[in-house]
C-alpha cells in the first residue's frame, strides 16, 4: 500500500496528506468542543451533555448508553446542525470579507499542521528515526509562526466586515493582543534552537531536530527542554494561551463585555468554522509545545522512543510514537480547558500590561541569559 502511495504523483500524495490532515484536525476540533463541555461540566460538578441519543447507535446495548453519557451524540447532532442550519447573512456586512474571515481563520490552522511532525517511525533502511510529517521542511518552527500568525487576519476581517460595534472591538483587540504576544512567543523559542543548533555543523529550524536533540543519551541529552529551559517553556505557554485566544486571554470574544466579540454577527456553518479553527489552532499550539519542550514522541525524559520501537513493525512503531505524541498533546488541550475553567478572564489593560511590560522584558532577558549561558557552555 505504501508502494502504491509512493507511486502516485507527488501532488496527489500531497492532496492525500492534506485531506488526512483535514480529516484528522476537524474531528479533533469537534471532539475538543465536546471535551470542553464535558470538562467544564465535571469541574463544575455536573454530568455534562448526556441527553441526546442517536436513533440507531444509541440503542446498542452497553455501548449506546456509554456513548450517550459521554455526549457523543450531542457532538454529532451539533455538527449536523451546523451544516444544515440556514445561512443567515446580516444585511449590513461587507459580504466578501465577511465570508472570507472564516476561511482565513481555518486555512492557516490547517496549513501549519503540514510542518508539524506528529510522530516518528523507525526507518529500517537508514536505521534512523524518520518523522511522521506531511512536509519535513527545514524552516519548521518559522513556518508554524509565519502561517499561524495569519489567523489574526481572520479576526480582524471578521470584526471589521461585520460592521458592528462588538465585533469591531473584538477585531481590534485581537490584532493588538496577537501582535503583543507574538513577540514574546518567538523570543521564547530562540534559546531552544540556540541549544539545538549550537554544536551542530548544519543549523536547522526543523521541529524534528528539536525532538531529536531531546532524545539523545546523557544527562543533558535526554533532558526535555522544559527542565532545561523552564522559563522559555513558561513564556511560550503563556503566549500560546494568548495567541489561541484561550481564557484567560480570550479578549477578542469575551462574551461578558463584547457579546461574542469578533464572531457576534456569525452563525451556523461560518461560525462553526471559527470554532474549528480555534480548536485546530489550539491543537497545533499544543503539539508545538510538546515538540519543543516535552520531548515530542519520547515517552519519558531520558527514555527515547527509538530503542523501544526498533524491533517492532514499522506501522506499529509509528503508531506508538504518534500515540505518545498525541497523548501529550491531548493533555495540553486538556490543560487549556482546565485553565479556562479555573482562571477568570483578564481585563484588557492587564493583558496589554502583561504582554508588553512583563512578558516581553522577561523574554528578552531570557534570550540574553540563555545566549550567554550557551555561549559559556560552548566555550568550555
Amino acid at each position: 500500500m505504501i508502494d502504491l502511495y509512493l507511486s502516485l504523483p507527488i501532488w496527489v500524495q500531497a492532496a492525500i496528506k492534506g485531506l488526512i490532515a483535514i480529516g484528522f484536525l476537524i474531528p479533533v476540533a469537534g471532539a475538543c468542543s465536546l471535551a470542553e463541555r464535558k470538562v467544564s461540566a465535571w469541574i463544575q460538578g455536573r454530568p455534562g451533555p448526556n441527553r441526546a441519543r442517536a436513533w440507531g447507535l444509541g440503542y446498542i446495548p452497553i455501548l449506546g448508553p456509554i456513548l450517550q453519557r459521554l455526549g457523543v451524540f450531542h457532538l454529532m447532532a451539533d455538527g449536523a446542525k451546523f451544516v444544515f442550519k440556514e445561512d443567515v447573512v446580516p444585511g449590513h456586512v461587507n459580504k466578501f470579507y465577511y465570508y472570507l474571515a472564516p476561511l482565513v481563520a481555518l486555512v492557516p490552522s490547517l496549513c501549519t499542521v503540514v510542518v508539524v511532525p506528529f510522530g516518528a517511525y523507525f526507518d529500517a533502511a537508514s536505521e534512523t528515526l524518520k518523522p511522521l510529517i506531511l512536509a519535513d521542511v527545514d524552516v519548521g518552527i518559522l513556518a508554524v509562526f509565519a502561517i499561524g500568525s495569519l489567523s489574526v487576519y481572520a479576526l480582524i476581517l471578521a470584526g471589521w466586515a461585520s460592521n458592528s460595534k462588538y465585533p469591531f472591538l473584538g477585531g481590534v483587540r485581537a490584532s493588538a493582543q496577537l501582535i503583543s504576544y507574538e513577540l514574546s512567543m518567538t523570543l521564547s523559542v530562540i534559546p531552544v534552537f540556540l541549544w539545538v543548533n549550537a554544536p551542530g555543523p548544519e543549523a536547522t529550524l526543523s521541529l524534528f531536530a528539536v525532538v531529536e536533540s531531546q532524545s539523545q543519551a546523557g544527562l543533558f541529552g535526554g533532558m526535555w527542554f522544559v527542565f532545561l529551559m523552564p522559563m522559555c517553556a513558561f513564556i511560550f505557554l503563556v503566549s500560546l494561551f494568548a495567541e489561541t485566544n484561550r481564557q484567560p486571554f480570550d479578549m477578542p470574544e469575551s462574551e461578558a463585555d463584547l457579546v461574542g466579540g469578533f464572531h457576534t454577527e456569525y452563525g451556523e456553518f461560518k461560525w462553526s468554522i471559527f470554532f474549528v479553527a480555534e480548536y485546530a489552532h489550539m491543537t497545533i499550539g499544543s503539539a508545538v509545545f510538546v515538540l519543543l519542550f516535552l520531548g515530542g514522541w519520547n515517552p519519558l525524559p531520558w527514555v527515547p522512543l527509538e530503542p523501544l520501537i526498533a524491533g517492532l513493525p514499522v506501522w506499529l512503531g509509528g503508531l506508538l510514537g504518534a500515540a505518545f505524541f498525541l497523548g501529550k498533546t491531548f493533555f495540553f488541550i486538556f490543560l487549556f480547558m482546565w485553565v479556562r475553567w479555573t482562571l477568570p478572564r483578564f481585563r484588557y489593560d492587564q493583558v496589554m500590561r502583561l504582554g508588553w511590560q512583563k512578558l516581553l522584558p522577561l523574554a528578552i532577558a531570557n534570550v540574553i541569559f540563555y545566549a550567554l549561558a550557551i555561549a559559556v557552555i560552548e566555550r568550555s
Partner: protein
Amino acid sequence: MSFKTVERKPLTLAERTYVPQILNGLSHTFKKMVKPNETLEYPEARPPIPEGYRGVPTLVKDPNGREKCVSCQLCEFVCPPKAIRIKPGEISADADTAHVEKAPQEFDIDMLRCIYCGLCQEVCPEEAIWLQNVFSVSGYTREELVNDKERLYELGGTLPDEHFKWDKKKAAEEAGNGAH
C-alpha cells in the same frame, strides 16, 4: 461609624507572579473534577419526596374503592388560579354508594393553571383531593395537560382513610334509631 484600616501585608514575589495561586486554583478545580458529583442526575435519579409534599393534585379513593369526592366544589371555589372545574352529579339510586348521593360527573384540573398551592387539599372536607409526589408534568398539547376525572383517580390511587364517615353513616342507617 468608626473605621478601622486594615493593614494589608505586601505581596511576596511569588504571590505577585500569581503562579502559586494559579497552581492552587488548578489543583482545586482538578480535585473537583475527579470527585464524584454531589448533585442528583434528575430524570434518572429522583429525589426522595418528603411527607406533605405538594405535587400534582389528584383525586383519591378510599380503601374500599369508593370515590371520596362528593363534588362540593369548595376546591373549585378556593382555587386561586381557577384551575379546577367540576360538574356535580347525582349517584344513581341503585349504586352501592347511593347513600353518598353526590359525586362529580366531571372533574378537571388544568395543570397549566395549577400553582400547586394545596388550598384544594386544605379545603376538601372529604379528604378526597391530595397533592401527591408527582412534580413534573409535561405534554405536547394544552388538552393533554388538563387532567380529567379518570386521570386524576389514576394519579391519586387509594389512600388510607381515618374516618370512613360515609360507611359509618350507612351502618347507622342500617342499624336505625334502635341502636341507642
